[in-house]
């Protein structure tokens, strides 16, 4: 037999160029900034060459160690509190005929989707030194509990983030096959015993996944600890900001070291959870979803009450800011009486911030959608070494807190030849880098379900792979990707932690302005700005819920 040579030919097709473009952009906007950050963390103003000075001072000074301790305690306790609130909520909502279930569901989602620092701000409006409720209670001689400090931060995180646990657990609970619980009952378990010995262990991985989301989000959050910590309760994200912004010229090296520590913390928690879940994942195909228990009269009221209360508390911040945005203020705070002054003020003074917010987010979304589709296609259909590398890279921003990404981009792009600091581009880049993982994840989930033969059919009918991608695959992915994009849009318009590091004179956003107005004690305008964000969020959320019809996952 004649042995014909092995034929290998490099393939410079459409996907080759897409892969190259994606890898290059990732190297440039993610790997390069992050390596610069790591490098910078080993330099110090006081010494020449590489040094461990920054890390040495971190682990020797109480100031820094306290911050690490605070960060971990706050994140840990918040996760635990969210678990205690979210898991029972999910159980009640999935297993009983709660009154107004759909409305409550929307409220829970809105609590999660509200601007992250809005909670802190409105709790200050209620329970702060000059808060409505504080003053009300003071008038009758009662001293209200303080909202400032660690307790307040944990309360705000819990009410803002419990929906993560809720969504994960509710998802798991409704996919348990009812025969599993019936088997437990059959074997003689009491209902309560069954809950703790069968149901709970099975949904445990979901509970933990939700708790880890809470942990990472609270660890990365900047606005809440900044507003409620008042410089006394310091956390890592705030220190990163302080180290860079404060003092004379700021200390980018120390900020870099702090950033590296924040990323390592966040990464270890994620890996810990991945390790646990990988070992204990009860894949389940629910043939018969669990039945909803129908209660009547006072019993039904009793299960509805706690759910409604929690949902209301979660929604309270939004209600508070919207109401207070219509109240007259002077330099002492709110003085009562209906007014539209606050809106007039922000329209005349802060119109740029408003247009910036929508403009940056819209541009970012376009990039997120296009890149998200291309990357998820490569990850699912073009598996190989390049795809694996891409998978790792694209998911990395998941563990990078916003303020850390801010520092990354600053240290990378504040010197010649590439100066991007203070431009709209750097803001948009930070939004795209941070939100891309979510879109890629939902895009890949969709593609895994879609059989590859649909696109092969198109190719065999004479349509090139590139044209097939745009006319068939992209077309089919679009509904799912767009619902995901609405969620990304919501998080972009509310983004504070990296915007506050990256904004320049002309590129400030609504969230940055709210932060500054609150700091300046200009509560009326802050409330009006926050209301604009809240209303946009609610409207976008409504579009999402109508549009997605359960196709896109919120988590």
């Amino acid at each position, binding site marked *: 037999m*004649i042995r014909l040579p*092995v*034929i290998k030919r490099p393939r410079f097709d459409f996907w080759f160029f897409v892969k190259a473009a994606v890898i290059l952009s990732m190297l440039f906007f993610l790997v390069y900034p992050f390596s610069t950050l790591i490098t910078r963390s080993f330099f110090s103003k006081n010494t020449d060459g590489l040094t461990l000075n920054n890390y040495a001072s971190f682990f020797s000074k109480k100031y820094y160690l306290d911050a690490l301790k605070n960060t971990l305690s706050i994140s840990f306790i918040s996760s635990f509190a969210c678990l205690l609130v979210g898991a029972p909520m999910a159980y009640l909502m999935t297993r009983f005929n709660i009154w107004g279930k759909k409305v409550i569901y929307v409220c829970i989602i809105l609590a999660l989707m509200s601007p992250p620092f809005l909670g802190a701000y409105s709790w200050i409006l209620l329970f702060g030194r000059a808060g409505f409720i504080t003053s009300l209670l003071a008038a009758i001689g009662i001293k209200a509990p303080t909202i400032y400090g660690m307790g307040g931060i944990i309360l705000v995180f819990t009410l803002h983030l419990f929906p993560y646990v809720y969504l994960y657990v509710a998802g798991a609970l409704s996919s348990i096959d009812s025969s599993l619980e019936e088997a437990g009952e059959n074997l003689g378990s009491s209902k309560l015993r069954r809950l703790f010995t069968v149901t709970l262990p099975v949904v445990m991985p979901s509970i933990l996944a939700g708790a880890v989301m809470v942990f990472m989000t609270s660890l990365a959050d900047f606005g809440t600890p900044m507003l409620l910590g008042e410089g006394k309760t310091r956390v890592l994200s705030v220190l990163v900001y302080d180290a860079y912004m404060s003092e004379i010229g700021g200390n980018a090296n120390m900020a870099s070291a702090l950033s590296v520590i924040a990323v390592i913390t966040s990464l270890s928690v994620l890996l810990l959870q991945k390790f646990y879940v990988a070992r204990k994942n009860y894949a389940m195909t629910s043939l018969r979803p669990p039945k909803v228990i129908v209660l009547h009269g006072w019993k039904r009221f009793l299960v509805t009450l706690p759910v409604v209360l929690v949902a209301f508390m979660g929604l309270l911040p939004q209600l508070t800011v919207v109401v207070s945005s219509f109240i007259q203020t002077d330099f002492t705070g709110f003085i009562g009486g209906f007014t539209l002054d606050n809106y007039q003020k922000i329209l005349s003074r802060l119109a740029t911030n408003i247009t910036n917010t929508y403009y940056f987010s819209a541009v970012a979304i376009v990039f997120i959608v296009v890149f998200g589709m291309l990357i998820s296609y490569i990850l699912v259909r073009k598996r190989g070494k390049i795809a694996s590398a891409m998978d790792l890279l694209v998911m990395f921003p998941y563990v990078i807190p916003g303020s850390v990404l801010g520092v990354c981009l600053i240290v990378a792009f504040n010197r010649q030849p590439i100066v991007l600091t203070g431009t709209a581009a750097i803001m948009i880049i930070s939004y795209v880098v941070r939100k891309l993982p979510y879109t890629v994840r939902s895009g890949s989930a969709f593609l895994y379900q879609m059989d590859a033969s649909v696109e*092969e*059919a198109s190719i*065999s*009918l004479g*349509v*090139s792979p590139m044209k097939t991608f745009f006319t068939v695959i992209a077309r089919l992915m679009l509904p799912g990707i767009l619902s995901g994009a609405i969620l990304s849009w919501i998080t972009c318009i509310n983004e504070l932690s990296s915007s506050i590091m990256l904004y320049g004179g002309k590129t400030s956003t609504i969230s940055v302005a709210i932060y500054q107005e609150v700091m300046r004690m200009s509560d009326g305008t802050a409330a009006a700005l926050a209301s604009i964000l809240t209303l946009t969020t609610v409207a976008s959320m409504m579009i999402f819920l109508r549009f997605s019809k359960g196709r896109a996952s919120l988590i």
Partner: protein
Amino acid sequence: MQSHDVGIKDAVKMYGDFKAVAGITLDIKRGEFFTLLGPSGCGKTTLLRMIAGFNTIDRGTISFGENVINHVPAHKRGIGMVFQNYAIFPHLSVADNVAYGLKARKVPGSETGPRVKNALEMVQIAELAGRMPNELSGGQQQRVALARAFVIEPSVLLMDEPLSNLDAKLRVQMRTTIKKLQRKLGITTIYVTHDQEEALSISDRIAVMKDGLIMQVGEPTQIYKKPENPFVAGFIGVSNFLDCDIAGQDPNNAALTVAGYKIKDVRLSRPFTGKGKIAARPEYLSLDAEGIKGTIELSTFLGDFIEYEIMLESGQAIQLNEYTKDALSVKPDGMEVRVALDASAIIVYGEGGEVLT
């Protein structure tokens, strides 16, 4: 319709060190209905996808007519393909699905309409032209897929287990539709299936595959009646394998000894003496006064024939079918019988599995 013959020469597909297709050479004639048949993992789909252009060809060549197509990208090969799971575009109507390939070929609109209509008529779903795919049953979707594939007048039509997702009744119905259509259009067709009955009923020729290699190529009757090796004999239909001693110095008048029972007047293709093996179909065995001793383990009445599971004295179980019209009655379980072999219908293999008849 410009149909091509397909030439495959020493084609190899590697997955790491594993040879999915281990050097296959085939010549498929113009207008032929050719089937790749084999168990799962035999490489039949891999080979089909190499022809389609979805798998690279690591070694060897594939050509359409005179042209080697190894490096022609899939979308320029001018093939029509029908997939196992239909692969209908869910966002396009039935008519738009069928028109898709014509539009890609820039066929003028005035021509597209009639061609789509004609194609849908040929698969008997003209009335569904305006429907969306999610309103169609599996069988209807497969008809759309079929129309979509042949409306572009492909040089070769490829089908990857197109009937395996349909229920038994529809499968037989679609089988007939496909066969008639192919005869009418005369498109060179390569069909992949693991279902031997389907392959036998639909094909002009069949290649039986195993472990990335061709075990036998031939017309359905050839493959059924003269399996060239025990694998084909066992894979196509049911065969009983029995060890035998062959005394065949004279190939025209050889004698076999099976479990002490002597079969005379066997014709071999060449002289052979030694140990071997015979393959006998259940319907070529009969219950007789003479033959191999055995006991009926289980008799099953299946309407047109009776199936007996017989335990031979050697401890080997065999299957024997008796046509109801030839049988006086269904013989009871536990009955002692003798099994006779039809010397003209058994296949004899040498020790290494080489065919001797």
